């Protein structure tokens, strides 16, 4: 059986599921709903596996499969930079190594989350609630849109998926519509996304204008022939790159359009896992990778991507340090990790961006689902301050979440180590890399390890701060929730082995080679050559250093939050700068002791202490930085975002005054305005 011919089934199946559940779901029993929702997703996953397997059996250069189903938009000819181009858009799918990775992640993780949802949303089922079928219907619609996005073989169809996922995200964030905040959050997400989409649209038009086509294959081939633009200049490719990236910042929650994502946590937790961690938000990364040829020819755009990614990574991580809502911590963490991926893309290491996208999908989905399990166990409690000591009460959740936390912190051999380390290495060594980009990445890694272990300690360790009412209801989640967690945990552990750096056991670059056909073109080959001669030792050293950094973060979290005797003092968070200044002084003395007074100590000890000192200095700095970013974020949220939604409201209010003057309701004021308009028209025509 030739699976490749049937890739159109991959998006279609979830749509069928959506249709049945959406139309008839009201009358279905829970089992029937599950059957359609899960069955369609599972089949879709199996189709994907089959198709990818078939793809992998081809020669690497032949691993592109285009399937045009029908002509969607024919619009005759249009004058472009390539002469008269026949503007025709196919409804067509493209399977190549890049979309292969994406569909596996989307359908695989998607299926697990579907399974999980049958447990998590079970209480929504009922004749008067009716949320259950609606939920699965939306979820399947999302799967359809997301798969359309990643399988599309042209920009226009990709945009269909792009808007579709935004719409589903809106529907699912606002799923608990009786909560006003949920409705508002959904609206915010949709509107912020639309701003980015305007950029995407414009970029798309510009692409057509420049390359005379919207088909990925044609555009990339033509872009590869274009001369590389000078760094610092803004040519047409740079403009395209930046416009598309604007779209990506909206969808993938990067600065400055990131704020909808934390609010999106109003949705049900499986939605957060699927849409706001594993799949939809990574669409921006996918898109940038998909258009890698354009970016490689526009170094300025790449720098923009890298800087925005890096700054977002550190910015969001620092906000994550002080959040108390378990899902919000994870949300900021997602923003930060997405920043990492863009950082990777921005330095030209697209395959690493996709690699991190994949591992992130595993461990972040797991974290969200684990958090969901915790919330489920605590009857809906989301505040870290009212958790604690859950380690023994929900041990399976604990173990799986710990695995994910180690993965995200970058501890070997968990999956996150390989991808994150590769990003840092590329940021440092690649042709487009800069040492300060690497530094940003390292600091963000430190913060990541810190806030993730803070979350673990606050949730699972110490004594219980759980509401006594809730306390005796605590129970481990049912198996249909736990099994997906365990599968994802396994993936979080082993997922990184597809790409192992050279200094470990000789290395393995299966993932890179798999994606090579997508990202290989003359411009990148030149870049690759430059990287070759970088030393193996430096890579190993940096890797070691980043592990040390991660461990330091964990240690600091331990120092701050693992306190068997007393509950973490919440006031400490606000008094932290003072606290850390003191803390710092104390250790500085010790360093002086180690280095100058007590020279008898061995070097390792000194280094250890030095590290601690430096890190503590970092803590001090980050205390300030956290407060700063928190302030900025607060300000941003208050003035710009609620702005962006409210800026509209504000503008509207401001505009209502002139409007009130103009739209008076009096015929003669209207006539008078018309006369003014006529005067203006005649002036414009005759006298100008």
């Amino acid at each position, binding site marked *: 059986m030739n699976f490749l011919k049937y890739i159109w089934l991959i998006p279609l199946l979830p749509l069928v599921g959506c249709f049945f559940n959406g139309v008839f779901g009201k009358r279905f029993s829970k089992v029937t709903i599950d059957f359609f929702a899960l069955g369609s997703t599972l089949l879709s996953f199996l189709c994907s596996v089959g198709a990818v397997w078939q793809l992998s059996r081809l020669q690497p250069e032949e691993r592109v499969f285009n399937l045009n189903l029908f002509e969607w938009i024919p619009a005759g000819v249009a004058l472009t930079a390539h002469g008269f181009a026949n503007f025709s858009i196919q409804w067509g799918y493209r399977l190549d190594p890049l979309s292969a990775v994406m569909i596996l992640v989307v359908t695989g993780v998607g299926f697990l989350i579907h399974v999980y949802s049958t447990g998590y949303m079970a209480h929504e089922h009922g004749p008067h609630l009716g949320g259950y079928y609606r939920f699965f219907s939306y979820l399947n619609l999302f799967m359809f849109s997301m798969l359309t996005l990643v399988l599309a073989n042209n920009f226009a169809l990709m945009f269909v998926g792009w808007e579709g996922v935004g719409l589903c995200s809106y529907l699912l964030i606002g799923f608990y519509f009786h909560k006003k905040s949920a409705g508002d959050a959904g609206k915010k997400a949709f509107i912020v996304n639309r701003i980015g989409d305007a950029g995407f649209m414009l970029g798309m038009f510009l692409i057509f204008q420049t390359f005379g086509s919207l088909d990925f294959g044609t555009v990339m081939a033509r872009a590869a022939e274009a001369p590389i633009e000078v760094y610092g200049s803004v040519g047409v490719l740079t403009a395209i790159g930046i416009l598309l990236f604007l779209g990506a910042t909206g969808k993938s929650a990067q600065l400055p359009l990131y704020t909808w994502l934390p609010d999106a946590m109003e949705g049900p937790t499986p939605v957060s896992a699927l849409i706001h961690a594993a799949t939809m938000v990574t669409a921006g990364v996918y898109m940038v990778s998909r258009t890698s040829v354009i970016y490689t020819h526009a170094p300025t755009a790449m720098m923009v991507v890298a800087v925005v990614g890096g700054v977002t990574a550190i910015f969001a991580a620092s906000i994550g340090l002080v959040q108390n809502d378990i899902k919000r911590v994870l949300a900021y963490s997602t923003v930060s990790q997405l920043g990492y991926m863009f950082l990777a893309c921005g330095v030209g290491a697209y395959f690493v961006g996709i690699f991190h996208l994949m591992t992130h999908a595993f461990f972040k989905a797991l974290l969200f689902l684990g958090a969901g399990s915790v919330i489920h166990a605590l009857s809906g409690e989301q505040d870290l301050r009212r958790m604690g000591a859950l380690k023994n009460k929900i041990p399976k959740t604990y173990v799986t979440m710990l695995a994910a936390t180690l993965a995200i912190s970058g501890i070997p051999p968990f999956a996150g180590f390989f991808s994150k380390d590769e990003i840092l290495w590329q940021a440092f060594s690649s042709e487009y890399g800069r040492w300060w980009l690497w530094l940003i990445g390292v600091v963000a890694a430190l913060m990541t390890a810190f806030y993730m272990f803070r979350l673990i300690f606050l949730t699972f360790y110490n004594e219980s701060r759980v509401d006594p009412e809730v306390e005796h209801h605590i129970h481990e989640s049912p198996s249909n929730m736990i099994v997906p967690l365990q599968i994802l945990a396994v993936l979080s552990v082993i997922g990184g082995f597809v790409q192992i750096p050279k200094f470990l056991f000789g290395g393995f670059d299966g993932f890179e080679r798999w994606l090579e056909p997508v990202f290989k073109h003359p411009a990148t080959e030149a870049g690759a050559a430059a990287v070759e001669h970088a030393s193996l030792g430096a890579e190993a050293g940096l890797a070691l250093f980043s592990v040390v950094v991660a461990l330091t973060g964990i240690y600091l979290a331990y120092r701050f939050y693992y306190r068997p005797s007393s509950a973490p003092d919440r006031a400490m968070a606000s008094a932290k700068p003072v606290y850390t200044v003191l803390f710092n002084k104390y250790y500085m003395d010790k360093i002086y002791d180690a280095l100058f007074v007590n020279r008898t100590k061995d070097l390792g000890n000194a280094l250890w202490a030095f590290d601690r000192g430096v890190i503590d200095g970092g803590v001090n700095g980050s205390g300030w930085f956290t407060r700063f970013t928190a302030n900025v974020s607060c300000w941003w949220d208050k003035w710009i975002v609620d702005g962006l939604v409210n800026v509209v409201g504000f503008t509207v209010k401001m505009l209502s005054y002139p409007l009130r003057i103009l*739209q008076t309701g009096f015929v003669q004021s209207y006539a008078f305005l018309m*006369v003014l308009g006529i005067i203006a028209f005649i002036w414009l025509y005759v006298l100008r």
Partner: protein
Amino acid sequence: MVPLNYFLILAAILFCLGVIGFVMKRNLITMFMSIELMLNSVNLTFVAFSRHINVLSGQIFVFFVMVIAAAEAAVGLAIIVAFYRNRESLNVDEVDRMKL
């Protein structure tokens, strides 16, 4: 022989008087009369041009403008009567229930 421009200027003046009347008068019927004044000056323009360039179609156009003026008058006055029945007023300033 009167030059063409004289007729055109006269028409323009009448037209603008119509505009002034429409924008300033408070009585619905006089506003409507101002429109008739404007249409008339358009007709004058047509006839003057027609005479000057020696092409008759302008006069045909005037004929149709008159037809339309008649039709508009019938409908417009009916609307005004309906308004008067509802409001007992012909004051245009009272037509302001809907605004902004």
